[in-house]
């Protein structure tokens, strides 16, 4: 076996390195280096031509100096000269210097490329490999341009040596990663796939990496690799431990190649061919069986190599998620590892089980390990292992074990590392809400969260508990009692004061009967915290006080005294001052009745399900979620009075609308002008009420759903999109849109900017502008947590035929979104022809190790491409008449869902995109609009008419366009806006 001695070959270099090592100080080192640099410089500039050996030695010294961290500004030319030497050792130093030091220096790159070209053509495998390694190490675009076409040839040439093929495969991979456009697919691709059959395992090892990379963007071109990979894998897995000789590592046959093959298979769905699939399942079973066999060696290398294959096998089983038997076996295997003495294995088992927990087939099997996992959370020394245990508990949680898991997580929180506290708080809050059976448990849990880790409890979490308490009267008394007790603690967190202030202000009366929590006691308890709190909390408490005056008249004098105090009335903070002044006045001038109306208990928050919950529910099947609602509150409305959502009694309608109300109540809408053709009289229709609604043929709603099949994998977006990390689902398996997707989309039909989506983790904002058939949309993704999102991947997908109707170009965004940060994505949109369904926006990322995904409808509807058209009354009627075929008209009669306000309606119609035409309709109450929908292929003229009937609180909407589906679709979109 080879052995080299120190500094063998270049004595001068060894001496220099020794000198440097002997330097006692940094200064001495610099002095020595400068001396050497001067020496080398003089040699390079000298009259005497240097021989190859000296040149090599000096270039190598320069390289050493550079690697010590010093700048090198000469010697590049000498290094390039070494490339054309015939001696391997000189060439090698030249290439090494170039790989480490040259960053696409334009002057030299031509010379370097020339030398590489010569070496590639040399038919000397050693030189060819040096050149290929240099390309692979530098990987610059210039090199790609020069060699991308040559390398596939070298790779598949019949006479290339094995080592050259290995290097060529990976060199090509590097160029493809750097500039995919430079590597054209061609007839060589088929031959690359067949390298999987190569006799030389090293060639196969390199080729699998290349194929795994290429197939992600061209899955169909490389499909044949599946059966080849399976048979290769099968041969390795079933071979005896010594069959593969050179490629056996500690009695494990070809572990790295096996892992690579298993990863390649994860780029594809399960094989369609039954024989191939059978063979693969056999392989997977063999790996699982082997895990149970006694080890062939006690060395850790043996078990690591074996388990590397095992974990990759389990990843593939999870990726397929279709073989219940294998999933459960995988879970049992991981279960054994949970108590293994090797920390590595415990860690990896926890991590891998986390993904198993989300499969319906193995969820139950994972749950059986709960005690072991809880124990890991308590006893593991390595924080990263504890973190994985927390992730797994979260993933395995369901109704049956929620109480246990939540209480263990709470206990862990008391000692948890600061870095992961917020994440644990969020997890506990989500679980507590999701699986709450009785709400007192939920309230206890959240208050405990605030007590234990108040600093890490974000606003969303405590807003949420207030919403739930407000909406559930069965828990209000309990909440008041509990929060009152929690506030007794001498030092309680400010978030507790906020929650306490709010709850007592609303429901303090429920515990006022007990003398221990009588109104004056409640008040003085809250007020004892007042001076230590921030302005926001003090503002909230002032609102609580005024609520107290209403709830408990006996506290009025005391509270007025507090409000009157100079520290409030003349407070430097405007908000506090204003509240004190207003509340004081309100309490003095208003009668008890007025006070009771103004300070009435908060109305329930709108009940709707949180999107996180909905997503989790879909994953785990029905019955897993709880009945808890999620009415998100606008953060600005978090204090009782300042931001109270107007109850009917506190609403003061602006006068213009009152005016309009009077007007609208007056005469019923007149008959439509004669020119409207069809003899349907508004009055008649309205008097018939909703029963007379014309049926609209196939309900657009249904048509919409049926088009929501998973987008075809060959959709152009899937190709444009960045390749997702292998373990993540490809764009083709994005989930269905969240249940609220339609509702969210509707909000954007008449406006272009706003918040599209928000949950506890993520906020997505939209800004867009449209002109003619083009649009540009900015999506803003805000990370609301303090933890970085990883593998952040938003993609736009076109279901069904949409890709022929709408072109959306996306720019990639950074794969990481820091906590609290926002990233922006630009979308360029072109409307090719009329379309009915909006594109889908799929957002995937990892948050604290757990994959998150979300599918929304992108707010791009056909009306965005409206071009408003002004026209005179007579033109309008003429066109209206021209569009009189029954299928060109769509009509809808519907009940008003919002107050019927003419100004609002106008704004909505303008937002919708059409021009509003005045003095066209004889009835001034009616709205008439016109516009042209601009698409690349055609233009669609649209006329619309909206007839409100204030008495019946109904509208009739009529659309006429030159294209039937467009009429129906526009009618449907617009009708939902009123």
């Amino acid at each position, binding site marked *: *076996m*080879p052995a*080299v001695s*120190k500094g063998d070959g270049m004595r001068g270099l060894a001496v220099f*390195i020794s000198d440097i090592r002997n330097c006692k100080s940094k200064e001495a080192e610099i002095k020595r280096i400068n001396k050497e640099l001067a020496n080398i410089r003089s040699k390079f500039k000298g009259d005497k031509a240097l021989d190859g050996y000296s040149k090599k030695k000096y270039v190598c010294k320069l*390289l*050493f100096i550079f*690697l010590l961290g010093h700048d090198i500004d000469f010697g590049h030319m000498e290094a390039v000269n070494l490339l054309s030497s015939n001696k*391997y*050792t000189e060439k090698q130093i030249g290439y*090494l210097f170039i*790989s480490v030091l040259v960053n696409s220096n334009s002057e030299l790159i031509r010379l370097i490329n020339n030398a590489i070209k010569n070496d590639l053509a040399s038919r000397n495998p*050693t030189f060819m490999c040096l050149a290929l*390694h240099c390309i*692979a*190490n530098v*990987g610059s675009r210039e090199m790609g341009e020069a060699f991308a076409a040559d390398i596939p040839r070298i790779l598949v040439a019949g006479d290339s040596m094995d080592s050259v093929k290995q*290097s060529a495969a*990976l*060199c090509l*991979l*590097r160029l493809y*990663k750097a500039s995919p456009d430079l590597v054209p697919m061609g007839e060589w691709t088929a031959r690359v796939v067949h390298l999987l059959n190569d006799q030389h*395992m*090293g060639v196969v*090892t*390199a080729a699998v*990496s290349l194929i795994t990379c290429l197939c*992600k963007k061209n899955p169909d071109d490389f499909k044949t690799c599946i059966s080849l990979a399976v048979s290769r894998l099968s041969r390795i897995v079933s071979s005896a431990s010594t069959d593969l000789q050179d*490629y056996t*590592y500690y009695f494990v046959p070809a*572990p*790295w190649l096996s*892992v*690579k093959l298993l*990863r390649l298979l994860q780029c594809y769905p399960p094989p369609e061919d039954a024989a191939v699939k059978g063979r693969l399942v056999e392989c997977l079973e063999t790996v699982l069986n082997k895990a149970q066999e006694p080890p062939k060696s006690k060395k850790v*290398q043996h078990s*690591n190599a074996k*388990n*590397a294959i095992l*974990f*990759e096998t389990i990843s593939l089983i999870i990726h397929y998620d279709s073989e219940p038997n294998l999933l459960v076996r995988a879970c049992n295997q991981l279960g054994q590892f949970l108590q293994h003495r090797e*920390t*590595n294995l415990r*860690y*990896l088992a926890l991590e891998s089980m986390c993904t198993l927990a989300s499969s319906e087939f193995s969820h139950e099997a994972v749950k059986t390990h709960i005690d072991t996992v809880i124990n890991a959370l308590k006893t593991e*020394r*390595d924080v*990263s*292992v504890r973190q994985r245990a927390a992730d797994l508990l979260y993933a395995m949680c369901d109704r049956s074990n929620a109480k246990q898991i939540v209480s263990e997580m709470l206990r862990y929180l008391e000692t948890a590392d600061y870095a992961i506290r917020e994440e644990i708080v969020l997890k506990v809050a989500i679980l507590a809400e999701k699986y709450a059976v009785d709400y007192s448990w939920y309230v206890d849990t959240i208050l405990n969260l605030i007590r234990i880790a108040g600093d890490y409890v974000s606003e969303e979490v405590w807003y949420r508990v207030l919403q739930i308490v407000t909406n559930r009267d069965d828990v209000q008394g309990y909440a008041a009692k509990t929060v009152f007790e929690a506030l007794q603690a001498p030092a309680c967190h400010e978030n507790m004061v906020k929650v306490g202030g709010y709850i007592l202000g609303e429901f303090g009366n429920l515990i006022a009967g007990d003398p221990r929590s009588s109104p004056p006691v409640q008040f003085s308890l809250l007020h004892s915290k007042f001076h230590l709190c921030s302005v926001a909390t003090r503002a909230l408490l002032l609102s609580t006080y005024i609520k107290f005056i209403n709830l408990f008249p006996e506290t009025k004098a005391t509270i007025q005294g507090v409000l009157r105090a100079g520290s409030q009335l003349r407070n430097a903070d405007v908000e506090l001052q204003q509240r004190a002044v207003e509340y004081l006045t309100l309490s003095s001038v208003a009668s008890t009745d007025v006070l009771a109306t103004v300070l009435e208990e908060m109305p329930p928050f709108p009940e709707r399900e949180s999107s996180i919950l909905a997503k989790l529910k879909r994953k785990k099947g029905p019955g897993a979620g709880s009945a808890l609602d999620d009415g998100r509150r606008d953060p600005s409305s978090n204090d009782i009075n300042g931001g109270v959502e107007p109850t009917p009694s506190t609403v003061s309608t602006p006068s213009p609308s009152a005016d309009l109300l009077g007007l609208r109540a007056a005469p019923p809408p007149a008959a439509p002008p004669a020119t409207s053709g069809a003899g349907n009289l508004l009055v008649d229709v309205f008097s018939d009420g909703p029963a007379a609604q014309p049926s609209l043929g196939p309900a657009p709603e249904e048509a919409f759903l049926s088009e929501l099949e998973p987008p075809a994998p060959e959709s152009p977006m899937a190709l444009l999109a960045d*390749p997702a*990390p*292998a*373990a*993540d689902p490809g764009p083709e398996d994005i989930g269905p849109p969240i249940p609220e997707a339609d509702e969210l989309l509707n909000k954007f039909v008449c406006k272009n900017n706003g918040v599209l989506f928000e949950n506890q983790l993520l906020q997505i904002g939209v800004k867009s502008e449209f002109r003619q058939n083009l649009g540009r949309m900015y999506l803003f993704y805000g990370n609301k947590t303090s933890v970085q999102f*990883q*593998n952040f991947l938003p993609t736009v997908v076109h279901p069904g035929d949409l890709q022929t109707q709408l072109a959306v170009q996306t720019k990639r965004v950074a*794969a*990481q979104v820091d906590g609290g940060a926002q990233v922006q994505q630009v979308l360029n949109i072109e409307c090719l022809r009329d379309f009915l369904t909006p594109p889908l926006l799929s957002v995937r990322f*990892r948050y604290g190790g757990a994959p998150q995904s979300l599918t929304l409808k992108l707010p791009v509807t056909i009306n965005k491409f409206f071009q408003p058209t002004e026209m005179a009354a007579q033109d309008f009627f003429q066109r209206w008449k021209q569009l009189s075929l029954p299928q060109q008209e769509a009509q809808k009669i519907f009940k008003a869902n919002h107050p019927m306000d003419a100004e609002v309606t106008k704004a909505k119609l303008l937002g919708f995109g059409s021009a509003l035409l005045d003095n066209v309709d004889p009835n001034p109450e009616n709205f008439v609009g016109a516009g042209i929908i601009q698409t690349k292929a055609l233009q669609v003229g649209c006329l619309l008419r909206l007839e409100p009937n204030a008495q019946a609180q109904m509208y009739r909407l009529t659309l006429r366009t030159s294209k039937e589906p467009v009429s129906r679709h526009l009618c449907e979109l617009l009708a939902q806006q009123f």
Partner: protein
Amino acid sequence: MVWIRFILIQNRAGKTRLAKWYMQFDDDEKQKLIEEVHAVVTVRDAKHTNFVEFRNFKIIYRRYAGLYFCICVDVNDNNLAYLEAIHNFVEVLNEYFHNVCELDLVFNFYKVYTVVDEMFLAGEIRETSQTKVLKQLLMLQSLE
């Protein structure tokens, strides 16, 4: 896409004995990464795993005497495969340098690069057979 981002060999004092980059970083960034890796890895002991989350990647590392061998890969890559890839590499170095020690890597730094390129290329595992790698290295050694 999954590939090795960099390979680092450092001693306990933080001196770099090999740095092989498979991604474009500028020099300042490289220096920062080197320091961060050192800080992250040296505080861990034998009871800890051989894996540590690092920015958006993870470091798979193993300590041999005073040297830390670290490989930076994607978070969802196979930990144990890289852990053993490190060991495989170390066994090759040991054989090639005949009981390798830190000084061998210092004085023969330019040869270490050759060993790396034989076993890892473009951030991928190129060759895993110790016999094949050593045979190739012996052949190169015999060349002038």
